[in-house]
C-alpha cells in the first residue's frame, strides 16, 4: 500500500497528528517504567531467606519485672516446647528474618585496617541452624561445647575472646574472600577475632535498611541466649500443624511462667507477608495506573480518529466514487494509525530510557532491560489498532454517493 497520500494528509493536520504521537510516546515511556517497577517489587517480594519458611513459627514473649534465673527459665521453656506434639526443633534466638529488629556490627579482615570492611548482622542462639533449617554447604555446625552464655559475655567483655568461631553465609564469604574457601579465615570484630568454621547457603538479615544488596551479609555466633537477652522462640514443625503448635507454645509458655506477656505469635509466612506488604501495595498501585493509562490512551485515539473520519467524510466519498474499495479505506486508517503509533513508540523508547536514568539516579533502580522495548512497542501497536478499528470501519461504511451530495 502506498503511504505517500497518508503523509500528505498528515502534513495538513499537523496538530492532531502530533498530539496522538505525543500521547503514545508518554504512555509508552510511563508504562515501560511502571511495568519494570512492578517486576522489581515482585522480585523483592520473592527474595530468598535461606530458612524453611513454611515450617517455622515464632512466639515472642516479654517478662514483667526482672527474672531471677533467666538461663534456667530459657532451658526449661525450650524443654517444654520440644515436647509439644509436632515440634521437630526449637531455639531461643536473638533475631528472626523479616522482623526488622536486628543487631549488626562492623567487621574487618585485618586489625590494622583504618576503615571497616563492611557491616554484617549477627544471629545468635543455641541450635539456630537446625531450627531455621539453614543449609550448611561447607564446614560444620557448632559443637554443643562451643556455645558460651551471651549474658555472661555481656557482663564480662573479656569472655569475647573465647567465642572463637563463626559461621557465615555463602554471599558474605564470596564478598570477603572472592574465589577462595572461607573455612579457617579470620574476621575481626572490634578487638577480638573469630575463625570461620562453616558456610551456610543463605540466611537473610532481619532488616533490609542497609540496602537489598547486603541482604545476605550474615554471621552466626555460638552464643546461648537467655530470657533476659532474647525474647523470640522459633519452632520448626510440619506446615499443617503450625497453627496448632503456635497455640500450644503460647499456652505452655504462659503456664510455665505466668509473669510474662506473649507479644506476638505468628508463622514465618505471615511475618514475611507483613514485611513485603508495602512492595505489594506499590505494585498494586502501579497496575492500577497502567490500566487507567492504557484505557485513557485508547479512548483518546478513538476520539481523535472519530473526529478525523467525520472531517474527511467527503474525501472518503470521493475516493470511494473513484473506485476505492471498503477495504482500501479501512487499510488507509489502520496504516495511518500504525505510522503515528510507530513514531510515538520510537519517541517513547527514548523517553522511557530517560525516565529510567532519572529513576536509577534517585531511586537506586537497575537499568531497564532491553526486552521491555519490543514488548512495549507491540502492546501499544495492538492498542492503537484496536482503538482505531471502530472509527475506521465507520469510515469504510461511508457510501460513494456522499461525494456527489455535499459540494
Amino acid at each position, binding site marked *: 500500500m502506498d503511504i505517500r497520500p497518508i503523509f500528505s494528509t498528515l502534513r495538513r493536520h499537523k496538530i492532531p497528528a502530533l498530539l496522538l504521537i505525543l500521547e503514545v510516546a508518554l504512555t509508552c515511556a510511563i508504562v515501560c517504567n511502571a511495568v519494570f517497577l512492578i517486576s522489581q517489587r515482585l522480585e523483592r517480594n520473592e527474595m530468598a531467606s535461606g530458612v524453611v519458611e513454611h515450617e517455622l513459627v515464632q512466639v515472642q514473649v516479654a517478662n514483667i*519485672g526482672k527474672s531471677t534465673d533467666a538461663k534456667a527459665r530459657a532451658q526449661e521453656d525450650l524443654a517444654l516446647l520440644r515436647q509439644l506434639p509436632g515440634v521437630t526443633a526449637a531455639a531461643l534466638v536473638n533475631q528472626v528474618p523479616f522482623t526488622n529488629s536486628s543487631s549488626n556490627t562492623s567487621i574487618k579482615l585485618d586489625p590494622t585496617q583504618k576503615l571497616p570492611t563492611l557491616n554484617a548482622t549477627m544471629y545468635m542462639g543455641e541450635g539456630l541452624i537446625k531450627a531455621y533449617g539453614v543449609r550448611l554447604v561447607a564446614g560444620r555446625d557448632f559443637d554443643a561445647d562451643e556455645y558460651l552464655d551471651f549474658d555472661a559475655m555481656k557482663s564480662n567483655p573479656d569472655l569475647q575472646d573465647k567465642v572463637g568461631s563463626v559461621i557465615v553465609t555463602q554471599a558474605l564469604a564470596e564478598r570477603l574472600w572472592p574465589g577462595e574457601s572461607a573455612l579457617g579465615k579470620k574476621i575481626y570484630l572490634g578487638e577480638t577475632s573469630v575463625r570461620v568454621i562453616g558456610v551456610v547457603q543463605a540466611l537473610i538479615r532481619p532488616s533490609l535498611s542497609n540496602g537489598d544488596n547486603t541482604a545476605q551479609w550474615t554471621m552466626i555466633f555460638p552464643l546461648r541466649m537467655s530470657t533476659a537477652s532474647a525474647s523470640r522462640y522459633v519452632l520448626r514443625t510440619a506446615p499443617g500443624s503450625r497453627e496448632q503448635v503456635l497455640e500450644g507454645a503460647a499456652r505452655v509458655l504462659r503456664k510455665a511462667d505466668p509473669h510474662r506477656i506473649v507479644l506476638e505469635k505468628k508463622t514465618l509466612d505471615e511475618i514475611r507477608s507483613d514485611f513485603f506488604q508495602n512492595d505489594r501495595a506499590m505494585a498494586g498501585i502501579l497496575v492500577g*495506573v497502567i490500566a487507567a493509562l492504557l484505557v485513557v490512551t485508547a479512548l483518546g485515539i478513538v476520539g481523535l480518529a472519530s473526529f478525523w473520519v467525520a472531517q474527511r467524510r467527503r474525501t472518503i466519498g470521493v475516493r470511494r466514487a473513484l473506485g476505492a474499495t471498503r477495504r482500501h479505506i479501512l487499510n488507509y486508517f489502520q496504516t495511518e494509525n500504525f505510522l503515528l503509533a510507530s513514531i510515538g513508540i520510537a519517541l517513547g523508547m527514548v523517553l522511557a530510557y530517560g525516565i529510567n536514568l532519572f529513576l536509577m539516579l534517585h*531511586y537506586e533502580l537497575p537499568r531497564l532491560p532491553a526486552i521491555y522495548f519490543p514488548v512495549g512497542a507491540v502492546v501499544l501497536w495492538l492498542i492503537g489498532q484496536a482503538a482505531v478499528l471502530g472509527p475506521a470501519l465507520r469510515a469504510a461504511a461511508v457510501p460513494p454517493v456522499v461525494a456527489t451530495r455535499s459540494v
Partner: protein
Amino acid sequence: MFGYYLDLALRSLKRNKALTALMVLAIALGIGASMTTLTVLHVLSGDPLPGRSGKLFYPQLDPQDMDGYKPQDEPPTQVGWIDGIALLHAGRARHQALMTGGAVPIQPMQSAIDPFFEDARYTSADFFPMFEVPFLYGHGWNAADDEASARVAVLSRKLNDKLFGGKDSTGQTLRMDDVAFRIVGVLDSWRPTPHFYDLHTGSYSAEEGVFVPLTTATDLKFARNGSTDCWGKGMSDDMKTATCTWLQFWVQLDTPAEAVAYKQFLLNYSQEQKALGRFQRPANVRLRNVMDWLDYNKVVPSDVHLQVWLAFGFLLVCLVNTVGLMLAKFLRRSAELGVRRALGASRRSLFAQLLVEAGAVGLVGGAGGLLLALLGLWLVRRQPSDYAALAHLDLPMLLATFASAVLATLLAGLLPAWRACLIPPALQLKSN
C-alpha cells in the same frame, strides 16, 4: 457575556455527550491521581509543631574514637548518657530535654484487662513545656523528680481511656514492670506528624502511651526501643557507661542569637572533652532545627515521591488526551463558529467563549477528580504503612484540587481554542 458563553458551552457540551464525558473522565482521573499522591506528600512533609518548630533544635556531637574516622562524616544522630546528662545539666537553653523510646509492661489493677506492653517515652521534665504538649488532667513532672528518679508517670489520653475509662486518674497508682508509679498527668490528644523527636522509633508512629522520667527508667533498666550505635568497648550492662549513642537531645532557643551562642557552646564543650581525652575526633557539631532535621533524615518515604512523579506523568497523558479531544470538538463546530464570526463576533470573544467551555469541563472534571481523590485516599488509608491513617484531605488541598483541575483544563484548551479561532468565516459559510 460570561452567562451567554456559559449557556453556549453547556449546549455544546450536551450536544456531544460521549466526547464531553471522555474529556471529563480524563481530567478527573489525572487530577484524582495527582491530588491523592500530593495530599499524602503534603501530610507527610508537614510541620509537626507549626509556629514552634523554628525554635526547636537538635544538637549533635561526635564522641567516637578515631577508628573508622573520615573527616567529611556527619556526627552520630544521637548522644550517649554522659554527654546527654552534661548538656541537660548545663541548662544553656531556655528548655532542654533528653529522651529515648521504650516499651513497658502495664499491669492494670482491674482483673478484666490482662497485662500488656505499651510504647513509652523516657524523658526529662522540659519535654512537656518545650513541645507545648496539651494536658487534659494534672501536669508533667519537674526537674527535682528527674534528679530523684521519682516513680511518676504521665499517660496519653488513649491509655487513660483504656485503663480508667477517661476519668481523671491523677494521684492514682499504675504498676509497670512490677514497680508502682504515681500518675501525675494525663495528656490530651497529641500526635505530632512526623514523629520528629525520635525518628528511630518510626517516622510517623503515634505518640507513646506512657511517659516516665529518663532517670527512673534507666535505673530500673526498662526495655528500650530504637537504635543504639556503639564504638570501642561498646555495649555493656550499664548503659550509663557504655560507649554508645542511644538518646535524643532537644533544646529550645528562641532567637537566632541564642542559636549561634548555643552552637558555640557545643563547640567549646567538644573541645573541652577532647582536651580531657574523652573525645578523640576533631570537634564536629551540628545544630539543626526541626524542619532541617526532618529534611536531613529524609523522612518522607521515597515511594511517596515516586507515586507523585507517577501521578504527574499520568496527568500529563490525560491532558494531552484532553487537548486532542478538545481540538476535535472545537474544529467540528467550525461551521457554527464561522457563522458567529460572520455575524461580527471578534476572534477574542470566540476565544473567550471556547475557554469558558474548557473551564466548564475543568470544573466538572475537578468535581470528579475530588471524588476520585477521596476514593484514592480511602485506598491509601487501607494500606499497611504507619502513615496510612494520616492521609486525609484538608481544606487547602480541596481548593487546590478544583483550582488545578480548572487551570489544567484551561491550559489544555488554549491550543484548540486558538486553532479554532483561526478558521476563516467565509470558507465555512460556503461549504455547508
